[in-house]
């Protein structure tokens, strides 16, 4: 399967980033959202980002002009049923995702491939909302934020996904500048599972709620470990609440493995609404 036209459902940060990346591959791309304000905002931001790339001489004005003409925003109902790939990138809510997939299944041609950008729900579970035929054409394509810069796409085949579909998309992404990773339909896929230790171990190294210790761990991870950011500053950036929710969900799904047990200090911060940068206080205090 080679994507020839793409519709992205959901114009939040991830959806907009994914749409921008596909348009940059010179593919006809449609970005959809039920929230018209959000949709308009996403388009303005993408155009502004492209204009900046022209200023920085990373793209030419001619390339950007083409990309702009290839990227459209529309209500979902107005999208052509003949799109080759539809990617769902809406809120992480199982019931809403299932209902969107059920409705997309009615709208699009039987040949259209469906993908979800979910980071937490099993592909097998989402596939139950579409017809048995479509289930063979439904898979996970998990992008990372910012989708235009981070090269990884986790390509996740569900139990009934046509294996050649996942393999073909893997190859296509590789040929188009991404670094895909093929993975099984398991909790957290690859990154959200393996990365848990980066945070979990840091929380076990410190002896309590002590900013000086957080700073020291972060400094050592950067200066010695060559990580771009330390675990505490990164949790504050991602959102301590979000990080805790992912940890809890992977831990639950993997039969409460002791390796992935959420840490009481992280729970304490969540209970105190110390979510990180967005609330001006997490492991650190922000002005």
């Amino acid at each position, binding site marked *: 399967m080679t994507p020839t036209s793409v519709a992205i459902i959901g114009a939040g940060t991830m959806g907009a980033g994914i749409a921008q990346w596909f348009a940059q591959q010179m593919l006809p791309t449609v970005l959809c959202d039920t929230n018209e304000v959000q949709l308009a905002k996403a388009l303005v931001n993408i155009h502004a980002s492209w204009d900046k790339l022209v200023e920085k001489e990373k793209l030419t004005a001619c390339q950007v002009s083409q990309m702009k003409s290839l990227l459209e925003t529309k209500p979902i109902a107005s999208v052509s049923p003949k799109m080759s790939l539809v990617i769902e990138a809406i809120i992480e809510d199982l019931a809403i995702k299932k209902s969107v997939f059920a409705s997309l299944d009615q709208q699009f041609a039987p040949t259209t491939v469906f993908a979800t950008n979910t980071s937490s729900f099993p592909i097998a579970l989402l596939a139950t909302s579409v017809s048995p035929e479509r289930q063979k054409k439904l898979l996970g394509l998990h992008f990372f934020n910012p989708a235009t810069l981070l090269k990884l796409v986790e390509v996740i085949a569900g139990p009934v996904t046509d294996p050649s579909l996942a393999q073909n998309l893997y190859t296509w992404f590789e040929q188009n500048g991404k670094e895909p*990773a093929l993975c*099984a339909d398991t909790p957290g896929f690859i990154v959200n599972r*393996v990365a848990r230790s*980066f945070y979990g171990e840091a929380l076990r*190294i410190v002896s309590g709620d002590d900013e000086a210790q957080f700073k020291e761990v972060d400094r050592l*991870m950067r200066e*010695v470990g060559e990580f771009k950011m330390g675990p505490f500053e990164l949790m504050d950036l991602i959102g301590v609440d979000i990080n805790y929710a992912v940890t809890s969900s992977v831990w639950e799904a993997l039969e409460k493995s002791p*390796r992935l047990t959420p840490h009481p200090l992280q729970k304490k911060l969540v209970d105190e609404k110390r979510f990180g940068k967005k609330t001006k206080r997490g492991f650190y205090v922000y002005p």
Partner: protein
Amino acid sequence: MSIREWILDLSVGTKQDKEAFLTLHVDKNVVMDLTCFDPQDFYARFPQLKGVCATLLSENKRCEAHFRENELEGLALLQAAGWTPVVTNMLVTGFVVPRTIATIVNEAFYSWEEKVATQGDIDRAMCFGVNYPRGPFAWAKGKEKIIVLLLQTLQERTGDRRYQPAKSLLALNA
């Protein structure tokens, strides 16, 4: 008063090997790699131990180091051996970076055992999805024995099953 000779020990060894080495050199000043052990425990028992460091999982010649005495001499010793020590007072079993790397590697081995993905795809995902400087399997290559020893030390000291090494990692260590 005579000037004591300095010794730098960066060898891979068991806890008993390290203890035996220190017992043999009671009349020296020793700076020792204790990547897989508890530096506080060694400091408490061996006064000749003047400094500790963690070099064994490092890929960039940078290492955590701590000196309880004679910091300048200890630093010079490590620098002369080609290391860039980063001094810290955070003295924990397995140090900060090695124990974090060991647990990331362990989870990657569990994931591989459970057929989540190939080793190559797991390495690729961690490098390109979250910008890790190396993939877990690239990190572990040739260092499996050290990682297992570190995880076993952590398990022994904490009694926490989170440090139980993956079977496939143990098999590489056999």
